[in-house]
Every structure is written in C-alpha cells, then in structure tokens.
C-alpha cells in the first residue's frame, strides 16, 4: 500500500502529515514572508505541534517586525497556483520527505471552490507533482467524521448529523453535515475570519497607540494571546474605562526590539488574565443609556490619552481585547451588511429538512482557529438560545484542538479501508479530465 499524504491547505496555516497518524507532522503558515533583514522571500519555519494550541511559532531568531507576506490564498480560495506550488514543493521535499509519485493525496478544499480553481489545483497535483491519486474533501465533513468516530455514542454519531461551525482564517461557515457529506445547499457563510480580525486589531491599535499596520505576525500573536469574547459588551465597555486596578482588561504588549528579543510578549501575563475573574452575572445599563455618561466623562479621557506614548516600544490594550472578536457576532458594527454568527447558524439550520433541526441544534461543533478565543462557545450559546425554538436543545461542542480537527478527520478517512476506492487516479485524470473527475467527489 502507498502512503497517503493528508494536507489541510488552509489560508492561514497548512497542516500536513501521513494518513493514519494522530497528528500532522508539519504545521506551517501557508505563505512566504520577507523580514526586513532578508533580501529574498523565505519559507516560514514550521510551528511546533506541542504549542499548536496557541499557534505560536517554534523559536527562531528571525525578527518578523514589518515583514511583508505573500499568500497563495485570497478570501479563502487559491488564486496564485505558482506560489502554492513553491510552498508545496518545499513541504513535500524538505519537510515531509515524501515522493508524490508513489503517494495518494487527501486534500481539503474550501466549500464552493470555483471550477477554474479546482482545475488549477488538479493540474498542480497530477501534472506538477505526479501524485498517484487524489481525494478532495472539505473541512466540515472531515470535522464531523472525526467527532463521530471519537464519540461513537453521541447523538452526532448515532444520527450521522451535525452542524459544523468553521471559523478559520479567511471566513466563517455554518455547515450542516449529514451522513458524512456537507449539505452545501444549506451552508451559510460570513465573510470574516482570523485575517480580518487581525487587520481590525491593527487598525484599532494604530489609531490609538502606535502604528502597527505593517505588523501582521506580531499582531497575530497579540490577538491570540490577549483577545477574548465578551459575555456582556456594555458592562465590559464600562470596566474598560476604569482607571488603575479596577480596569480588569488593561494589559501591555511589548514589541520586539530586534536586539534583546526578536519576538513580542505580554508584559505582565497575570494582569492580562485578570478578566477571567469576571462572571456572567452582573447586569448593566444598555448601551443606549450609557452614551451620555461617556460623553461627560472628561477626566477619563485625559487618562486615556496618557497611555499613548509613542517613544515606547509597547502599547496598552483595553476594550480592543473584546471588540475585535465581537465582529464575528456582530459584523454590522463594522458596517458590514452581514448577519452575525448566531443568525448564520439559524439560517443554515432552516435551510435543512425540519426533521434535522433538533439534531443539528444539539450537535453544533466549533472548529477553526478563530473559535479559540476564551468564552466563544458561551457567548454563541447565549445569542443562539433565544433564536432557537423552545423544544430544541442547544448543545455546542468545542473541538479538542480546533486547528487540527479537519486534518485529524482526514487522517482517519485516509486510513479507512474504503479510501482507495474514493480517489481519482492519475490515469483517470488523464483520461477523463478535471471536470469529470471532480464529479466523483460529490455524493
């Protein structure tokens, strides 16, 4: 039997390894970058698996301050096949050490990939790399497959049905899965993911403290370490205005100085965790009432102004910490004419047969790196409950490792006895062409 290379080709992170393994052997940003110190575009170094939760990179001496980045994927979809080929070539040859011509490839592709992009992908797989065979899958069905085999007695597994909420780098999908296939007619998408969140955080910090518009890698780190989901936005906005110790959100991030440290860090990690002491109990006046209070609060504004110190290589965060993930729940706050996550889920469920509704609401699975924010599931449940019929239960499961969920499902699938028959071989590709081969991967 030949190897199966399992490749979850995300817009942010690429997860790759061999089918049958527990975890991918390589996790690497799906991009090239050019640090200020480098003349050429470089391949990022792999992220160590043990720290994949925090998505931190393995220690490296490279200072990524103001590094430029080139990504093969735009808005979730492959737009630069040449660049993707470079990255895959490095991956297969130098990192995975596999020989594609005697391997199969299980590749994830986003839902609704355009035919022209599918065609370009098939060309790379069969013509540039000469893979022996290919199976293309999507993240929600693989995540479902993984959860179903991990929890065989759950409703999800018994009913062969779940609602996978995939909040990744490029976008967010609410995807009903039934009998291991994503019901694509019912999928709903919000055009917001981790990339937009990082860019929004850059924007906020740049106008309030110092210019970090060029700091993609640093601000990713800030977002991952310091942002969380608020369970009560009006209350937390109040707390974020308080001076001194009463402000449970204020914390400081130190930028790399290029001399003593090449990576940024949280100044007082214990201060940054103080928000965890907040409970969901306290109620507060509505946002509408509060407006007047804020406008009269002049003393706090001077306080606010003081923390902006351009000579220092550090900045404070307060309300940015929860206003950034807030976008996923209320894109309209940003001026985006799209419903938030709770409504997105309801619309996806309502597009399915009514018999499935109770099961779907009871089998919601969160996956994707942007679901890692503290309190994500709690907030979602809070917003979802009032929108769901009383007779339905709402049950939200967080994946053990939301970044690796799709890959692990792919690894399981690749090691199942039926896998080989599901693939399209190189010979079939050459005989039938891309379009007809692709039909094989549909139901």
């Amino acid at each position: 039997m030949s190897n199966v290379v399992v490749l979850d080709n995300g817009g942010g992170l690429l997860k790759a390894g061999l089918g049958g393994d527990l975890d991918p052997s390589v996790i690497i940003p799906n991009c090239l970058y050019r640090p200020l110190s480098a003349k050429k575009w470089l391949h990022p170094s792999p992220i160590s698996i043990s720290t994949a939760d925090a998505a931190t990179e393995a220690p490296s001496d490279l200072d990524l301050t103001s590094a430029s980045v080139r990504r093969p994927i735009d808005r979730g979809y492959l737009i630069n096949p040449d660049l993707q080929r470079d990255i895959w070539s490095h991956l297969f040859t130098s990192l995975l050490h596999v020989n594609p011509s005697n391997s199969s490839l299980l590749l994830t592709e986003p839902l609704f990939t355009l035919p022209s992009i599918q065609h370009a992908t098939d060309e790379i797989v069969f013509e540039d790399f000469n893979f022996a065979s290919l199976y293309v899958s999507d993240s929600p069905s693989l995540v479902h497959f993984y959860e179903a085999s991990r929890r065989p007695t759950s409703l999800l597994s018994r009913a062969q049905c779940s609602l996978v909420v995939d909040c990744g780098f490029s976008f967010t999908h609410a995807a009903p899965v039934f009998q291991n296939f994503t019901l694509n007619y019912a999928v709903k998408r919000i055009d917001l993911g981790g990339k937009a969140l990082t860019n929004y955080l850059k924007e906020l910090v740049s106008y309030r403290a110092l210019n970090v518009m060029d700091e993609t890698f640093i601000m990713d780190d800030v977002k991952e370490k310091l942002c969380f989901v608020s369970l009560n936005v009006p209350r937390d906005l109040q707390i974020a205005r308080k001076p001194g110790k009463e402000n449970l959100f204020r914390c400081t991030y130190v930028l790399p100085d290029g001399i003593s440290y090449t990576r940024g860090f949280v100044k007082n990690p214990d201060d940054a965790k103080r928000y965890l002491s907040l409970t969901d109990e306290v109620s507060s006046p509505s946002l509408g009432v509060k407006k007047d209070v804020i406008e009269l609060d002049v003393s706090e504004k001077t306080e606010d102004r003081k923390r902006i110190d351009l000579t220092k290589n550090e900045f404070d965060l307060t309300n940015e910490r929860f206003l950034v993930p807030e976008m996923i729940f209320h894109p309209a706050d940003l001026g985006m004419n799209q419903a938030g996550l709770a409504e997105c889920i309801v619309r996806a469920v309502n597009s399915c047969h009514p018999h499935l509704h109770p099961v779907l609401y009871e089998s919601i699975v969160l996956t994707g790196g942007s679901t890692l924010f503290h309190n994500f599931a709690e907030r979602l449940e809070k917003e979802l409950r009032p929108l769901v019929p009383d007779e339905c239960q709402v049950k939200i499961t967080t994946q053990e490792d939301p970044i690796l969920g799709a890959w692990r499902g792919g690894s399981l699938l690749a090691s199942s006895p039926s896998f080989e028959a599901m693939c399209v071989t190189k010979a079939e590709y050459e005989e039938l062409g891309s379009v007809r081969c692709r039909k094989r991967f549909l139901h």
Partner: protein
Amino acid sequence: MDDDATNPFRRMSSRTRKVAPKMVAALASSDNRTQAALARLEALENDNAGVEVVENIDDEDASLDDDDQAYIQKRQSKGTKRKTRQAKALEAKKAPKTFMELLHEANLESLPSHVPSYSKAAVGPPSSTSRRHFCTVCGFAASYTCIRCGIRFCSSRCQNIHNDTRCLKFVA
C-alpha cells in the same frame, strides 16, 4: 480608472498616483461615506498594510531611477521597495488574479437557481437593523458621525484625532 497606462511619462510618487484618481472620484461622488465604508471593509482582507505598495518580488531585476532610489530610502524603514513604472507594468501582467476577478469570470449568476454556489452561500444581511456604534478612535459608544467619511466618533477629542489621522483614509 487609473489613467497611468495612457500617460506613461507622468511622474508622481506611487501613492499620489494611486490615490489621486480615486480621491477625485470619491469627492465627486454623492455617496462618499458608502465608498469609505466599503474601502475600509476591503482593507480588512489585505495581506500587507499599504494597499499602494507593489511588492518587489524578484529583487534583482528592478531597475531603479533616481526618484525611485530616493523613495526607497524613505520607505526602507518600513520594509518595502519601489519599482519603476515599467517593472510594475510587467509585474502587473503576471500578477495573479484576485479572487473577486476569478469570481466574476466564473459567472455564477448564470447557474440555475437551485444550484448551490459561493454567492448563494453568503449569509445575507442581519435581520435586525439595530447597529451599535463604537468610536473608531477609542472604541467606546459613539453618537457622532463624521460628515465627510461617515466614520463614528464619541467626543470632540476623538473627532480631532480622527480628522488629524484617519479621516478619508479609506476613501483613498
């Protein structure tokens, strides 16, 4: 659109060239604020901050004239280089299409209405129209709107910061 192609000898900094025609269009447009809002959303999907920066992909082949050299030195601290117009034009030809261009080419509108597609999967507008407004400068509840660009702010202090730093930035 960009009139560069028809006027290859005009010499201006890259930023001015790109910004100017759009700025003119924006100011002439009756719906400046909508445009600013759309541009701001668009910027959230950028890989690198400076939308006007063209990345120097093959470092060696860029031929640089004096103006560009001077500009490079100015920009060096930010880690980006400038190319000449010719080099840029060449690069533009082999530059990959954006997803929006590929989407347009795919002509999804021609599919029968029952076929699921990228366009049909979009979640659509929120059911409640109550939009909360946060000050774009400080993040707190904002009751005022900038008449020029439509962005929100909460106080005269934040209005001043807005005017000094970010007003009309996203129109450009």
